[in-house]
């Protein structure tokens, strides 16, 4: 019995370049499985971002363009307005989506662009070596908050999925995690919904994925998933914050 198959939407002979224990690999695989299952590969245009998330275009066998840092939702808007019949999605980190790109991300949602956005939240800038970012937790030590994030100087982390849910053009906004099999299954359901609302022309579909960064957190993969459960989920609760479709799948 075949229990696992590499999705057709993955590039032939691809090799992940993510660090061991990083959840990006799971997120990418979920996206690829859905492109297969929803028959989207041939009509997909991916807008890649800057950071570890950029490598998605090395793993997915779809048409893709890189966006300058933070501008993925603007580029995706251009792609979709020019080619409304295509399936257009972005894959960004929290720094790209919610710090440098917050204006683009918010306004794409406010316009109700028929786009799907995926944001990997790992509470740090991973590629540059673990700096303080928009989702860094209070108390979290990073290379640019070595004493731990404290609000008087660094302010507070942003709750991205809730923020996007507040935008009237948003059709679907959810936060998921990849720390357990149950959560991974829920994540796939949420991604499917975020893709489907675009296909149905309902507006902006968004999923924030809580993810690990063992290298910069200086943890083992297991410890990193414990941190997702014990520190991230209490601050960033999982759930669906907006769903304009009638039958709400509770995540």
């Amino acid at each position, binding site marked *: 019995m075949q229990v696992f198959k590499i999705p057709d939407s993955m590039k032939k002979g691809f090799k992940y370049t993510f660090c061991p224990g990083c959840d990006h690999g799971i997120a990418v695989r979920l996206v690829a499985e859905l492109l297969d299952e929803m028959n989207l590969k041939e009509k997909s245009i991916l807008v890649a971002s800057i950071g570890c998330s950029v490598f998605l*275009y090395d793993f997915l066998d779809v048409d893709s*363009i890189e966006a*300058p840092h933070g501008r993925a939702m603007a580029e995706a808007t251009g792609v979709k307005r020019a080619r409304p019949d295509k399936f257009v999605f972005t894959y960004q980190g929290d720094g790209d989506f919610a710090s440098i790109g917050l204006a683009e991300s918010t*306004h794409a949602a406010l316009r109700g662009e028929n786009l799907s956005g995926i944001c990997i939240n790992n509470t740090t800038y991973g590629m540059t070596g673990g700096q303080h970012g928009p989702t860094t937790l209070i108390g979290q030590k990073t290379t640019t908050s070595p004493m731990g994030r404290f609000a008087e100087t660094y302010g507070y982390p942003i709750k991205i999925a809730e923020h996007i849910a507040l935008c009237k053009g948003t059709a679907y906004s959810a936060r998921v995690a990849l720390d357990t099999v149950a959560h991974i299954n829920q994540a796939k359901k949420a991604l499917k919904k975020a893709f489907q609302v675009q296909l149905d022309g309902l507006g902006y579909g968004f999923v924030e994925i809580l993810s690990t960064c063992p290298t910069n957190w200086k943890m083992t993969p297991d410890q990193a998933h414990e941190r997702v459960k014990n520190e991230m989920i209490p601050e960033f609760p999982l759930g669906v914050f907006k769903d304009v479709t009638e039958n709400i799948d509770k995540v």
Partner: protein
Amino acid sequence: MAEKELLKGNYAIAEAAVRAGCECYFGYPITPQTEIGEYLSQRMYDLGRGYVCAESELAAINMVLGAASTGAKAMTSSSSCAVALMQEALSYACSDEVPVVLVNVMRAGPGLGYIYPAQGDYTQAVYGGGNGDYKMIVLAPSTVQECIDLTYKAFYLSQKYRNPTMVLADGLLGQMMEPAVFSKYPYPEIDNSNWALTGAKGREGRKICSVAPSEEKQIEHINNLFKKYELIAENETEWEEIGTEDADIVLVAFGSMTRNIKAAAKVLRGQGLKVGMFRPITLSPFPSGRLNELSNHVKKFVVVEMNMGQMVNDVKLAVNGKTDVELINRSVGQWLSVEEIVDGVNKFIPAGVN
């Protein structure tokens, strides 16, 4: 036969974009070019084409980058300090070889600089304000008619060479009215099916990006870009010259200042001086070769521009020390008048000559 109409420069550019087949316009308001976005908001809607009031100039140029990556003709327009915001995306678009069209209707600078017309973005346009080695194609209209003709050309050249192309106009030209004709878009359509993002149907996924997987590949990529720029220079360099054959003095200007050096050259001829005029139509590629040829018999080039002396440096490089190059300029505001240019030229002529 198309009729002449009395047209404002900004409207001429906007309608020319429509007639060139622009499928998507993305923009953010800024004086003195706001009429372009205003006009297109209705026109594009009526035609069922793409239009977005972008949240910023950063977003606008990146929307163009996205739309153009699918092979669609797409454009934004802006002015000086806001074009400064777009430089990052232009560097990407050059490296990605995506045919972005951008109109800059220049205002005063540096900084906010207020809304006086000026020509202070020559260097930004020609040398680029973004990072790395790249070149845009830059076209400089001098009349409302050329606003139409060069907007057509910008769409064509950007598609032909897969290279960002800028129409560099100024506040004077954007706001003035004069008779012009909308001729038919005169260029062939370019087949972009071999590179555009259309979905990986029956083929492998395409990737448009500026990151090469190795140092060697990155060097090769940049070398290929520069081979393309050489080809563009060979094929597309364009200029206008009048009365240069016997000229001792040649006035050089770009954009709408061309109008005043044409008139000044006539006045100076009337005074018995052998004066001609020269004006690059393509600022990038710059007609260095022709200026160098002219420097074999021309004794003095006088560059007239509304900035602190930007194009004058390219004229100096072109003549490479063979001929004197002088500058008549003002930073911003009231265009240098014909009288000011004539007086300025006379000051460069030693007493007793002529």
